[in-house]
């Protein structure tokens, strides 16, 4: 990650946070606003981070994957379906049901990716068309099954959406406790306690969110420090050379695309098992494509992709947090009251980033090119 891009990311995040602080200052203390912005940013960046990592493994091995959106949508649906099956048909308690849901989300993401790998590696279909097929197929399958299972009287659920097992519980990392302890040494002050409570807000996240951050670190290690990573990258940069030294190009590509699909699957699980306890058709709402832009902006590196995901997360966090301050927005900023207008930020940001004005990025050399022996 070069300094120019790093500065840009900091600047955008500062502007987005600053806007909310400026608007909300009359109602809340800045530190609380910043803490809740940061908490929301990290939370909503989760599917983007996982989607970007998914794209990363695919493209590092030379397969363009614009089907992340579809993989996430499929996983969101099947993960949720599995959780509901477990809890309302088999009568399992909430937590095991949700964990089974996460497992099935990952598996269904992997299966969609298997299809993408078959299309692009074995059948050498145009990879962007192949990804579009995945997206359309995902909309069709999830829309059909959602209607068939939950709105038709003949189904197992009797035509209603059963009461689901809820969402994965947040896990609190006791950073706030530590801060409170330090506060105690200096004699407890009002601002110190506020700070401690803010920390509790930031460090109370769902398990998939924590997993995403760990996976960023793990992906970096796998891609750049292991033999597997070296092989993956060589297959993506120069498949013929890799083939010559005895690396099985097709096998590496299959493996990485499926791995990518499983990561996208975990990202899909975020939507229905961690964020909200329900499924809506089309609920991924373009997050898979934004994740792809994050991956490109992060220059095909895990940490870069994560940083870029946080920028998009901040843009979305602004939209969410602005809603809290709707009533105190001054009249000359009235357009900020309209969520549709503020909601444009991530999309415009994506387009801006793709223009390359913030520095060109270089894709893997063999990205998107089927390998002909």
């Amino acid at each position, binding site marked *: 990650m070069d300094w120019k891009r790093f500065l840009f990311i900091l600047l955008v995040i500062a502007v987005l946070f600053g806007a909310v602080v400026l608007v909300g200052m009359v109602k809340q203390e800045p530190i609380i606003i910043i803490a809740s912005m940061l908490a929301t940013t990290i939370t909503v960046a989760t599917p983007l981070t996982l989607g970007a990592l998914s794209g990363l493994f695919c493209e590092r091995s030379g397969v*363009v994957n*614009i089907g992340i959106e579809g993989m996430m949508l499929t996983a969101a649906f099947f993960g949720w379906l599995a959780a509901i099956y477990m809890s309302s048909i088999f009568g399992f308690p909430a937590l095991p049901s949700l964990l089974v849901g996460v497992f099935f989300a990952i598996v269904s993401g992997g299966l969609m990716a298997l299809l993408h790998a078959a*299309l692009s590696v074995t*059948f*050498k*279909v*145009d*990879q*962007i*068309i*192949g990804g*579009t*097929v995945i*997206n*359309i*197929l995902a*909309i*069709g*399958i999830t*829309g*059909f099954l*959602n*209607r*068939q299972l939950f*709105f*038709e009287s*003949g189904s197992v659920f009797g035509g209603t959406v059963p009461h689901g097992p809820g969402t994965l519980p947040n896990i609190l990392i006791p950073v706030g406790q530590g801060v409170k302890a330090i506060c105690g040494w200096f004699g407890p002050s009002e601002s110190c306690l506020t700070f401690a409570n803010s920390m509790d807000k930031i460090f109370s996240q769902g398990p998939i969110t924590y997993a995403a951050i760990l996976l960023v670190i793990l992906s970096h290690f796998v891609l750049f420090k292991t033999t597997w990573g070296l092989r993956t990258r060589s297959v993506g940069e120069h498949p013929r050379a890799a083939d010559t030294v005895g690396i099985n190009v097709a096998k590496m590509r299959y493996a990485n695309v499926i791995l990518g699909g499983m990561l996208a699957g975990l990202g899909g699980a975020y939507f229905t098992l961690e964020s909200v306890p329900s499924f809506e058709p*089309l609920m991924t*709402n*373009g997050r898979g*494509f934004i994740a*792809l*832009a994050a991956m*490109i902006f992060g220059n095909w590196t895990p940490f870069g992709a994560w940083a870029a995901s946080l920028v998009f997360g901040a843009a979305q966090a602004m939209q969410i947090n602005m809603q809290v301050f709707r009533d105190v927005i001054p009249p000359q900023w009235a357009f900020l009251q*309209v969520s*549709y*207008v503020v*909601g*444009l930020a991530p*999309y*415009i940001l*994506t*387009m801006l980033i*793709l*223009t*390359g*004005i913030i520095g060109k990025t270089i*894709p893997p*050399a063999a*990205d*998107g*090119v089927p390998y002909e022996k």
Partner: protein
Amino acid sequence: MRQLAGKIGEGLKNSLPSAVNSLLVPLLAVLTAVVLGGIVIALAGGNPFLAYVGLFQGAFGNARAISETAIWATPYIFAGLAVALAFKGGLFNIGAEGQLAFGAVVSALIGYALPGWLGFDLPAIIHIPFAILCGGLTGALWAAIPGFLKAYTGGHEVINTIMMNYIALNLTSFLLNGPMKDPNPNNVIARTPVIAESARLAPLFEGYRIHWGFLLALLVAFLVWVLLWKTTLGFEIRTVGANPDAARYAGINVKRTIVLTMALSGLLAGMAGTIEVTALNHRHELGFSIGYGFDAIAIALLGKTHPLGVVIAAILFGAMRNGATRMQFLTQIPVDVISVIQALILLFVAADAIIRYIYRIRAASERVVLTRGWGG
């Protein structure tokens, strides 16, 4: 199973004249998707034969059904042509949906507000073409933005057109919930007021909903064919699509052609929305455009990006959407199963290698390049 499939492929190839032979793969793709769709219907507890009979009855069973199929097909023809034209120029326009939505919004605005702005009623002969033109041009502008970004900055049109879809969705939500919302006190829906009588495209026959827009769509399909194969601009578009480097050496302004191709593509998509407003709904309602963009891609690919193919594919897709209601009535299978069948059609058309493998058809002599990755 594959033996049988191989025999089907063999038999079809021998019995068909060579002109039809290029249609073999799309035909078999549809056939295969229909068979798989039948399995899905059976698994969902329906009778696949009854379902398909219902589908056919609903789509072509009587004059009214045919009229409704044509209505469904009309926006599909425009939007399919939009995507097909972009493919010819080497561009993948996933943004037909946004272009369509914005075209519809603007033509609705012209339709209901222009007489008020001018202070007098316009004759239909001016009002209708003006509304269609404005809607089309809006679509063109909306698509030209990603075209411009592609040509001059290298930002990939696939992501940019999708982003423009979401921007269009947000902006039209804003407009239809705010400034352009139907002021009728009973209205709770995000939709525009009804357009003036003078902006409405008439039905073709008394008592049926089929309208002049369908004939216009056929005419436009012909014009796209003329443009692509009989004009210099069309030649430039196809050359840039086939090989931008060669086009540059031949002295074609590649950047300008890319922007123009996207604009023309957007014009067609915008017209899809416009026709729906002026001929059918007589207003724009939020959400009606959802799904058209992806359907248009499937139609363009199924039609092998040829205008005639697009028209046939659009009518097929229109027939499926229209007949689905009757199918649901007969078998209690939700209409959404059509989306699965259409996705399967797209899968088999895009991955014609699968079809060639199943039915043992030899591969085409040349690979047609449709899109390019992030690098180029």
